[in-house]
């Protein structure tokens, strides 16, 4: 490897920001699990320095990079402002391009990335999954060791998602504002959210409209590329991002509202992704303009201020900070503020709230043991609150925690901030709000 372009020099500079203070250790989920330096952010940064300075990518280092959930808790806890997110994305890209994985891993990864970023493919799987659940497992599913790995996760999604028989009507491309218009916003549908939790999208659109927004929901929008980007599949991520940029440029919106933390956190730096991939300045600039509009639903609603009337929803809930919302976007107070604005709703925090639940995008598919252990820990923390309803801003977290708690025999109802807001704005009962009617 001879010459390295701009981003590589940047990488070295970014590495130097780390002063080795270790403040990141206690919030790192793998440090919590294993207590060894190379599975902490500080240790991984050291491994990245070894990789960078000596231009060697060892098997060992790849292992430890793979172990990282990319939850970015370390970014929140770092007093020196180390951009671990950028460091990790670069490193993962390097791993993807330079490191040859064993065949089994390659097949699994290929399968995951040909499925998850595609809403239609995910939706099509729901039927067979129901069969899997009910015992009528198809021979196809049986034959494939791969699906053995995927099935539990997908089956959990299917179990938690509302039944297929009553999917909400598909969203129109424009949902007009109720009352005087305050803004024109775009909305991300998302892959997992769109396929498994369409009612969260419906609720999001309705809340935005009721708060006076024209909501533009382009059908042509695909995946935002977050899953690919977080996994170092830079090329794939860039292609997704480009299409996304084009579609939303055409939508002429003031903001792009996202209700899925993982997507939002990635969409906020399309420009960095483009630059890292060596795209033209023009693309970087276009991406930058779109990224600047990206905002989490809760962030946007707080900024907008409440206008629609909130009806009471007498309910005690615990709020789970999705990593890519709290650590990835620094959004922690807004969802709590919105929830406490609902009369009668009591919100409590989870112990160890800064620790990842283990979902982390597709981490639970690649590192099921670690993910399950983290899920169990999170489940114990939720159980400790004694609250039966858990609110989160990310579909992956909801799935992960719900399935962990089911395993532990302490089932919990999971819901999205948007759904509770929607219920409050529409004056629904608690049962209706939780989809139990």
């Amino acid at each position, binding site marked *: 490897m001879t010459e390295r372009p701009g981003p590589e020099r940047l990488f070295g500079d970014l590495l130097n920001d780390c002063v080795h203070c270790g403040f990141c250790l*206690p919030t790192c989920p793998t440090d919590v699990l294993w*207590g060894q330096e190379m599975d902490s952010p500080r240790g991984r940064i050291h491994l990245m320095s070894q990789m960078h300075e000596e231009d060697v990518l*060892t*098997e*060992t280092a790849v292992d430890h990079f793979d172990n990282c959930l990319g939850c970015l808790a370390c970014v929140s806890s770092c*007093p020196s402002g180390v951009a671990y997110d950028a460091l990790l994305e670069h490193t993962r890209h390097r791993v993807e391009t330079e490191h040859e994985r064993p065949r089994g891993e390659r097949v699994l990864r290929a399968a995951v990335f040909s499925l998850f970023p595609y809403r239609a493919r995910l939706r099509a799987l729901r039927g067979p999954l129901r069969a899997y659940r009910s015992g009528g497992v198809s021979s196809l599913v049986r034959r494939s060791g791969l699906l053995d790995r995927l099935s539990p996760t997908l089956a959990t999604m299917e179990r938690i998602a509302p039944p297929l028989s009553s999917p909400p009507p598909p969203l129109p491309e424009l949902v007009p504002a109720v009352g005087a218009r305050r803004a024109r916003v775009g909305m991300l549908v998302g892959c997992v959210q769109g396929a498994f939790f369409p009612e969260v999208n419906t609720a999001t659109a309705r809340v935005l409209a009721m708060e006076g927004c024209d909501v533009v929901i382009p059908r042509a929008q695909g995946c935002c590329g977050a899953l690919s980007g977080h996994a170092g599949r830079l090329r794939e991520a860039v292609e997704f991002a480009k299409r996304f940029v084009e579609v939303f440029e055409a939508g002429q919106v003031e903001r792009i509202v996202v209700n899925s933390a993982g997507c939002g956190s990635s969409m906020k730096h399309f420009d960095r992704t483009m630059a890292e991939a060596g795209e033209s300045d023009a693309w970087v600039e276009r991406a930058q303009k779109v990224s600047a509009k990206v905002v989490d639903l809760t962030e946007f609603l707080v900024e907008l201020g409440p206008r629609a009337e909130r009806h009471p929803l007498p309910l005690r809930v615990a709020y789970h900070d999705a990593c890519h919302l709290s650590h990835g976007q620094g959004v922690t107070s807004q969802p709590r503020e919105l929830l406490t604005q609902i009369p009668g709703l009591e919100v409590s925090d989870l112990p160890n709230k800064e620790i990842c639940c283990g979902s982390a995008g597709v981490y639970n598919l690649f590192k099921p043991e670690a993910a399950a252990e983290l899920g169990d820990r999170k489940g114990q923390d939720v159980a400790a609150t004694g609250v039966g309803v858990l609110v989160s801003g990310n579909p992956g977290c909801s799935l992960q925690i719900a399935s962990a708690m089911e395993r532990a025999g302490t089932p919990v109802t999971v819901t999205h901030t948007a759904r509770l807001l929607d219920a409050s704005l529409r004056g629904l009962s608690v049962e209706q709000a939780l989809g139990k009617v």
Partner: protein
Amino acid sequence: MATSAHQTNIPAALTALVPRLREICGEDGVLTDLSRRRVYESDGLTYHRATPGVVALPTTTAQVAAVVSLCAEHGVPYVPRGAGTGLSAGALPHADGVLLVTSRMRRVVEIDPENECAVVEPGVTNLDITRAAAPHGYYYAPDPSSQQVCSVGGNVAENSGGAHCLKYGFTSGHVRGLEIVTPSGEVVELGGKATGAHGYDLIGAFIGSEGTLGVATRVTVSLTRSPQKTVTLLSAFTSMDAGGEAVGAIIAAGVLPSAIEMMDALAIEAAEAAVACGYPAGAAAVLVVELDGPTSEVDAQVERVTELCAASGSFETRTASGAVERALIWKGRKSAFAAVGRISPAYIVQDGVVPRTALGEVLGRIAALSAESGIRVANVFHAGDGNLHPLVLFDDAEPGAGERAEEVSGAILDLCVEHGGSITGEHGVGVDKACKMPRMYSDDDLTTFDLFRRAFDPAGIANPDKLLPTPRLCGERPGVRTGVHPLVESGQAEQF
């Protein structure tokens, strides 16, 4: 291209030990791979680095004892390490030794509110004790600024203090019992749930011994009742002198705040740049004063301190009693060290102590040193107990700048000793200041320390070359570092 894991490079003396270490700590409890070992090459002070010969990650006291016994049997040195946040290279690994890491021993064994104490393993973080005790209305008083990450074992090794040690004292005042593994591998229990123990105060002598007397494997700490009220004041001054005068006035008035912290203009500038803490504009010095205790006492003290600050020339004093507002005041102070990184490419954090009454003069001399050398020095310190943390700023890209910064930093320590102070108030001696010990202690003092050390560790295998100057470390004349560091010369360490 990926290369296979480095299994080589383990010092010959250790290769025989590895299988036995694996028997003791399990397969995943022993690290031999080079890139993994290198990750442990330094603690929080990255200036000193050495790749450990082998890393052991025990999970129980029995494992620690077995590892240390094995080392004793083979005459192999070992270095204990907690969270690796120390700032004196006290956990600098030994290239031919075992690095014994306690990070997997982090169970809070017991919170005992009836006896107002907690029993924890050494890898538990300082803040986790408080987290576990909080539901019972208690907290663990020593609060080093790294409290969210530093381990109790490390606190015991370093006798850690913190901003609030002005009122509440150091680790040594809060430890009731210790289970230790001696350098011969023997497990000894000292003290218990009562305060103090019969016989020599081995707990007192062990705390702050920087891992040279053994490894603490279980710690019983006192818990302190959370105060009824805590108020934080932020007072701004137009000069450091005026701020210093206020500190003197507060102490003279018989008020004992839990903390009195001070920052100078440069430190304020850095903190503003990093976290926008919103300290009063135009302040050449700010004091952060915290008062805690029964409401009836604290309210009167707040009034008194506010008056005293005003009388010393403060142009603005803010008070906060809510947790959020107090955190806002502390934010600037707590971020100061890391924040300095934003106004300077590199810096040295110094740690020295002067008698509080000498603060004014010493700060003046530091300013003069800075002016003469052209090296900027930011001051952030625990004013209440005279513990200075000058941050010596330099540009590491500039040739010779690092050396000049080192000189200034060293001269500041000389100032501390000259004024009857200490070369370290809380960071410890470690490797970093071992060669500076003779500036503070006579040869007789140092040989006396060594007598004590040898009582515990006659073979000299417990964290060797730390705390006391040795010819290997400091050259023939203790205290004078000539040329290349011997560890560097022998290829066992590198400096940067």
